[in-house]
């Protein structure tokens, strides 16, 4: 299914540019999903009936995970840009977009 140099998923019709664009869409979808996970994590002001040291410790842990996943959202966004760029290079004759 895969080659070592040019990747052509089934149904791509041997079009490396189109395939890179498809990958870019998939990566962007993952980015959006991860972004929505980050947005769903509880924030400090969302506590209504639970306060104190235990709540703050939990919030600290959740904030760490938010930061970790936030970085990965940015990394996926960078990947998407790279894939879009590579797709453009593959489509335009001579490699110039």
């Amino acid at each position: 299914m895969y080659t070592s140099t040019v990747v052509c998923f089934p149904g791509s019709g041997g079009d490396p540019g189109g395939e890179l664009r498809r990958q870019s869409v998939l990566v962007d979808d993952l980015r959006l999903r991860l972004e929505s996970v980050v947005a769903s994590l509880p924030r400090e002001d969302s506590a209504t009936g639970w306060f104190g040291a235990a709540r703050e410790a939990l919030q600290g842990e959740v904030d760490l995970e938010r930061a970790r996943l936030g970085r990965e959202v940015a990394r996926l966004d960078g990947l998407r840009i790279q894939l879009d760029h590579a797709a453009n290079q593959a489509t335009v004759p001579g490699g110039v977009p």
Partner: protein
Amino acid sequence: MTSGLTVGVGAGVATDELDRVGRVLQTAAQHCHEIAIRIPPLRTGESVGRDADLWEVQAAVRRSIERFDALARGLRTAATLYDTAEQTAAHALETAASQLAAVAGLLLSRLGVILLPGLLAAAGRLALVWGLVPAEQRETVLTAIEQGVARLAPALSEPTLLETLRVAMSLADDAALGTVGVPPVFAGLLGETGAGLSGVDTAALAVAGLAALAGASGVDAVRIDRAGADLRRGGEVRPVEPPSSLADRVGRIPEAATPIVIERFVLPDGTPHLEVYIAGTDAHAPMGGDQPWDMASNVALVAGEDASSLQAVRAALAAEGVTSDTSIVFTGYSQGGAIATLLAESGHYRTTGLVTVGAPSGAIPVRGDYPAVVIEHREDLVPVLSGIRRETNAVVVRGDAFDSGPPPEGGLPAHDLDRYRSTASDADAHGNATLRAAIDSLPRAALTGEHSAYTATRMPSSATTT
């Protein structure tokens, strides 16, 4: 309006915040897992740099999944520990408070001995003066007293006052023990927090005894009749759809005039199943009269006596030919809730569910292995009357009867059955996992059943019980 609800198991501890955060983290872990499994196909080997980035993303997401899972597990453990710790702390506080109540009782009784002659003389003079007051002015004074009592009514909807009253009801027996000279430390040992030899039921038994002496017995025999137009055929039976929710069940609780409704279904496995709905107290019924759903039965129930209303429901179940195989869900409001709890816990029936709203049933333990949901309003006086809630496996749902502002006019507006139906509807929509599990465990019949209603009449002690 589900945000105002607190849900807990046992003493009614609000663990729903922990539960909510735990669910959010569990969902986040699940979504992260779905993302992680979609990353490997994107590593094509075309670009080492891009593949390395995808490795990094996958590893980070997997670390987050582990952390979210661990945090959600921790929250579930914390919720259990909070329940246990709060119950232990409440027990210790109550022991100390019961000893203080006994001291107060002891002091008041000694003070009473000293002041009694003076008080009797003052009462005599007051009675003499009252006799001399003209009838119109007596009417004016009585009206003023009535207005004063009416002004106190809103205070009886204050949650803080009601929680204090709940504790006070539980301490009444300790104060009484102190009054008769039992040393405070022994009062604590005898009460609910110690050997359990005295409690709210002891205090209620004393009230029931006094009421019986005054001619208002709540334990006299009853006669039941199936309600409906076709009396020659033993009353009316009509088809009914199975209940689908807590609110649906609460909505089927009858008025006190026809206090027992029984719906007969067959479960998908062929087992006979009954839904039993029991009415609340008839506020206008004279104590000890022919309406068994009166205050006399209420007091008898809290005292642990065989109240007339309790006898009536047992008789209706016997009339329906209940056997040890018959699955029964008991649903009751107010006095009906206390009856439902007693019957569910009696061991005489195959209880498969219990739903109570606004019931003075805190002193009745719920230990059975069946789903039980107890719904109370924070502003309702009636559940408070049975004192601090004792051992219970029930899921306790506490909600606000009113949106905001001053409570509506009328006697005990927070005890209104329609308001409880609305709160039950909120509970149906609530996301708490324990509550959802309890609701989902209630038996569900698939086919149409039969509905019967019963009236009940209290008989003199010598009459035959039906």
